[in-house]
């Protein structure tokens, strides 16, 4: 166990080292001529208007929330899925089947709920009741 996760650590370190070393090596061989125009943001060749720190569309935020809910559910389903085969051999396949199916049904219900609420729609129509007057 220790060896396995040690390998993971070493892999991540070697990957970072590879990036770092090639960037340092590149710094030795590549030219460096500073010009103010080069250091501007690319905005189709024009001078950039403002920065990219502006209010952003909240649709992405909703997608991220939906994802987190599903991801947690997935993390909880995996252990049950792993033991399913063992339970099947012990003759308790029916119980495991019903358990996982309940889980899947809850997930499907969540999906149907989000779908019904319209959170999966990219373009949302603003309903009369949503607007505050």
């Amino acid at each position, binding site marked *: 166990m220790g060896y396995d996760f040690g390998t993971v650590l*070493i892999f991540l370190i070697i990957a970072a080292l590879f*990036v770092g070393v090639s960037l340092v090596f590149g710094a030795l061989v*590549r030219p460096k001529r500073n010009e103010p125009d080069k250091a501007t943001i690319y905005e189709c060749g024009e001078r950039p208007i403002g920065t990219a720190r502006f209010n952003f569309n909240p649709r992405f935020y909703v997608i991220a929330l939906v994802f987190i809910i*599903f991801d947690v559910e*997935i993390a909880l389903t995996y252990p049950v899925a792993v033991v399913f085969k063992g339970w099947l051999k012990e003759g308790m396949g029916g119980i495991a089947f019903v358990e996982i199916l309940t889980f899947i049904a809850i997930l499907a219900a969540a999906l149907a709920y989000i779908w019904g609420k319209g959170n999966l729609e990219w373009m949302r129509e603003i309903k009369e009741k949503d607007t505050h007057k």
Partner: protein
Amino acid sequence: MDRWDGGDMKELAEWVIRDLFSKNPDTWQYTWAIYLAGMALAAVICLGFVAVFAGPVTWVERRTAGRIMSRIGPNRVGPQGVLQWLADGIKNLLKEDLIPDDADKPLFRLAPYLVFSGMFGTFVVLPFGANLIAADLDIGVLYLMAVTTLVVVGLLTAGWASNSKWALYGGIRSAAQLVSYEVPIAFALLVVVISTGSLSTQAIIKAQGGWPWQWFVAKNPFTFIAFFLLLTSAMAEGNRIPFDLPEAESELVAGYNTEYSGMRFLFFLFEEWANLWIMGAITTLCFLGGWQIPGVSPEKISASSGWTFVGWQLLSFAIFAAKVSWIVFIVIQARWTLPRLRVDQLMSTCWKYLVPMTLVCIAGVLFMDLYIVQGGITDKIIRWIMTLLGAAVIVLFFLRARYNYKMDKDKYPGLRNEKMWYPPYRMP
């Protein structure tokens, strides 16, 4: 000198300690050094493999693109242009490194590290052959999903730190896309986990067999569908056309890597092409039998010794690489065949089609596992039907390609003299 009986890298390290240093691995004080050396060796070999795969595959992709678009593609550097990737790499190394003044500099520099580490971390659990794996983690599949998320963090960091509107849009879109498609991938892998009863990648392969009807793709209709769902979602996860919205060049210039240049830019592309192997390897190990050699059981491979053992390893690697290359080629071909989706279509494809379908697949596989005895007559009939169906899909693929070629040839006079097949060493 007792022989190394084909375990994992840890056993290899222990064998080195016992036989080359004549020490007991449990008590020797330098055991950790040998372990570290073993891990570093595995990492360096994988790194070399990634570089040697990701480089030439860019050339393959560009030549394929040329062929599909009736043009030539890079053919100048080296015979048939095979060294094009080296030329590109050297050029990128020599290019000036630009960091915009308005960028968030520490984060801007950090992003390539995150992206590359996230990509390279998956190689810990990706097997290359019967015993060729860096570390066979118990939680392999879960680890795969966890470590690839690092790429999302990297892309988001790159997009935000650039302080450019194009990059910001690209980064946010890519985050939304990658997290969304992780859900169908996780569900499709769940189908495999249910069929195997383990999360370890080697255990998943060993639960299948060498022949096509022993693969998970042919196990039952639901795994057959899950295979295509996994392939589709993996293409989205790898930012490949038709799902390459984060870097849609016609709308976002280059997406999250707009402000990057030189080596830093290269690492994003490196990640993208290395991802092709990862995506192919995951689909292969989960559904296409991995490295299993037809007619040779894994026990027989571990029981062999000496050069026979090495031979089996190389053969299993060749089989695995052939299957992965085939998937990679399909993905490359899809890139030059299909148009790009729109961003709202992308999201609805994931949440409204792929996720419900994978949920149905899970329920179906559970049901089939419960009522169909493995190795029974019903199981055999289903496997044979699914194998024939798979073969039919492949035949249809070739017929379709031939039909398109013939149709185009009749329509466009410029194609009259184009042959359908050139030997790879004598392409135009």
